[in-house]
């Protein structure tokens, strides 16, 4: 049985109001802190640091009081990518030297300590990325984020970046996501009622896929264009002429805790990038444990 409830599996972009301390942070803080943390971990290749980082992300998730089960739903969507990364690393990284201990070898495939470490690091990293980005959208409303982005980009206006226009585009896109998702659901159901076989079968046959997708895409685009035309009229009727001379209804106010969070995450980034993180074996040796890895 097909499932037409499209919005059900999209966890990114859904606000879960729990009123946690994370929710109460200024949206700019959330964007900046997440950016610093993601930057920091991207430049870090230590398994120890990546493990600790994942723990930190889980602590933040716990603080946000967003159900972990719900976060994992978004993670499942990213699973195919993860599997792909694993396979690639098994194929291409097996012969990278220094490889460390070789666990097993089968033809050209070779699993080494190095490739296993890489796999673990990428797994932890992808989970951290998905959790952090989902956390931003689950703890801040899209509107807050739009204002946050606009405010962060504002200094760049001087070098010609249309920060207000970008924010408005973002806002309107977000505004129409549920509307168009609903529309898509309706069109899918309508075509299914006319005998369309709307399933994932045959996506490796582009001709068949096109024949399946056209009855969905054409009406959706027609509707999107019609909506866009209407929206232009409605915005003109409300005297919209661009960002010049506009005032703002929403004003963001950062609290001391926001500054603290931004500074701490900036320091974390520096720590992640520049601190010489020890390897697991070094730690085990320091603790006097036998070298089993």
């Amino acid at each position, binding site marked *: 049985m097909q499932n037409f409830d499209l*919005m059900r599996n999209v966890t990114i972009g859904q606000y879960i109001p729990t009123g946690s301390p994370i929710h109460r942070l200024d949206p700019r803080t959330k964007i900046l802190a997440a950016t610093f943390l993601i930057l920091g971990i991207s430049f870090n290749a230590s398994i120890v640091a990546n493990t600790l980082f994942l723990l930190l992300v889980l602590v933040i998730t716990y603080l946000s009081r967003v159900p972990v089960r*719900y976060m994992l739903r978004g993670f499942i969507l990213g699973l195919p990518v993860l599997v792909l990364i694993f396979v690639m690393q098994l194929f291409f990284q097996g012969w990278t030297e220094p490889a460390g201990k070789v666990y097993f070898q089968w033809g050209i495939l070779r699993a080494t300590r190095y490739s296993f470490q890489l796999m673990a690091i990428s797994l932890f990293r992808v989970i951290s990325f998905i959790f952090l980005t989902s956390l931003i959208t689950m703890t801040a409303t899209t509107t807050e984020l739009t204002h946050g982005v606009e405010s962060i980009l504002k200094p760049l206006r001087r070098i010609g970046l249309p920060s207000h226009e970008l924010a408005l585009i973002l806002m309107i896109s977000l*505004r129409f996501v549920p509307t168009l998702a609903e529309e898509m659901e*309706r069109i899918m159901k309508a075509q299914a*009622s006319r*005998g369309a076989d709307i399933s994932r079968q045959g996506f490796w046959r582009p001709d068949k896929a096109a024949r399946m997708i056209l009855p969905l895409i054409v009406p959706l685009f027609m509707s999107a264009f019609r909506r866009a035309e209407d929206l232009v009229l*409605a915005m003109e009727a409300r005297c919209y002429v661009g960002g010049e001379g*506009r005032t*703002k*209804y929403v004003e963001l106010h950062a609290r001391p805790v926001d500054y603290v969070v931004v500074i701490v995450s900036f320091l974390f980034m520096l720590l992640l990038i520049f601190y010489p993180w020890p390897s697991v074996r070094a730690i085990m040796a320091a603790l006097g444990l036998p070298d089993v890895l």
Partner: protein
Amino acid sequence: MDPVIRLEQVRHVYNADSDAPVTALDGVDLAVRPGEYLVILGHNGSGKSTLAKHLNGLLTPTAGDVWVKEWNTRETARLREIRSTVGMVFQTPDNQIVATIVEEDVAFGPENLGVPHDEIVARVDWSLEQVEMSALRKRAPHMLSGGQKQRICIAGMLAMQPDVLVLDEATAMLDPLGRKEVLSIVQRLNREQGTTIVAITHFMEEAVDADRLIIMAEGRIVMQGTPRELFAQPERLRDLQLGVPQATRLAHALHERDSAFPQAILTADEFVQAYAAYVDNQPLSAPPPAVPQADAAAEGREPIIELVNVSHNYMHDTPLEVTAIEHVNLVVRPGETLGIIGHTGSGKSTIVQHFNALLSPHVGTVTVFGHDTERRDAPIREIRRQVGLVFQQPETQLFERYVGDDIAYGPRNLKLSREEIRERVRRAMTAVGLGFEEYKDRVTFALSGGQKRRVALAGVLALEPDVLVLDEPTSGLDPAGRRRLLALIDALRDQGITLVVISHNMEELAEICDRLYVIAGGTTILDGTVEEIFSRQAQLNELGLDVPGVTRVLALLAERGLLTPDQAAAYTVDAAAELLGSAIDAKL
């Protein structure tokens, strides 16, 4: 007093440079007086929406001038003043909302005008108060009902402090409850704030309270005056293809029998007074009308669709889960015409999507033609063929360039032979009144709204379903389009197709249905014949639903003792005219 908007000999031609220019406005003179409530009526294509877009300079005339206060709408430097003087609310609420939060959308206009922050806050508060939406100010617009969204759009305009509010078919897409909400707010603004209202519509009911009424046809103003003056000319209104309130139609019908019966009737109350005066307060002495018995044969037949204790949740298994329907019990019997009544959001669309296994129940069972749709071996495709489902505004699902191809999509999916497909397309097109040879090669997207809807209907009929489910088949159509579609549904019924019609238009349901279900809060509240349902006016009103206009008139007459309760049992204008006609016959 000086008019706030003045149109002088306005002409507007679309595609003026091409070989097929379309004259939408052809010499319109109009002065909108400050503080008045002006309604502009006309069928689709009469030029009324083009006229509306001239009022705030969204369009400028091809010839002639439009003046808003002292500004000509051609002066682009003055557009800011013009547009903040004349606010405009459009047809589709969804397509006018910019922001993801209600209050921020209301603030959009004043932000554009560069109003200082504190002043914007004050205006947003005030505007939301005016449309009674203060409690929902932090909500996301897509979580609101159509009426609520449209109120937000009005608030967005009020925040710009306009003198005039133009409603360009702002109620056409709303259900009766939403329409009532919006109208009562607009009327209050007119009364209490002195806001000038220009409402463009094709619903006669909305014209009743206007100070002045203008009727347009072929780009010209063809009638104007007070509603009472215009409603007294039934022949002309009929020629202009306008729908008249049922109380007025009833008065016209009685006037035809005896010209002493007044025909300038606007509301049910007025009708009752006129009738009381006409019969000198003498109760009707005729026998009550024979209540048509429910089709006993249909009653006995085995149901073809049966829902037992069905519940369905949206966003199932997530923190945002909501119950759409709960404990629904419903049967469809072969050959009957079933009506489903309920507000938008009551769950009626969710219910019918179980009929062809688009949705599966989370609790309960759905049996369609003997198959439990939940079972793995249920022939889903066959069920979808047998139960044809036509969605709301089905014209939006058309995708092929040519009419014939679009209709052939269903039969092609059935993998029929070419000849069989052609034959089915021919039959389906004939059934919806589109000639096969004439229309099959027409470009789909160039057709009129009503024609597109018929093409979409043919697209489902080409599957030759045994049951046809129609979700709001007449929504968004003008009265003439409505009448054509209802006639078409009637013809389908005569061919023996089982019909399920969802609607919130009681008058339409009373005309075509045998049996009705009333849905509220996601469950079936009432079911029974048209007579059984519409005789429970009080209970329906409690649910925010109405009975047909004539039924309300008869109930009022019964209250005044002019009819006995068992006489007050007519649900269509024809039946009511027949009933009251006997009083006239007795008098003559």
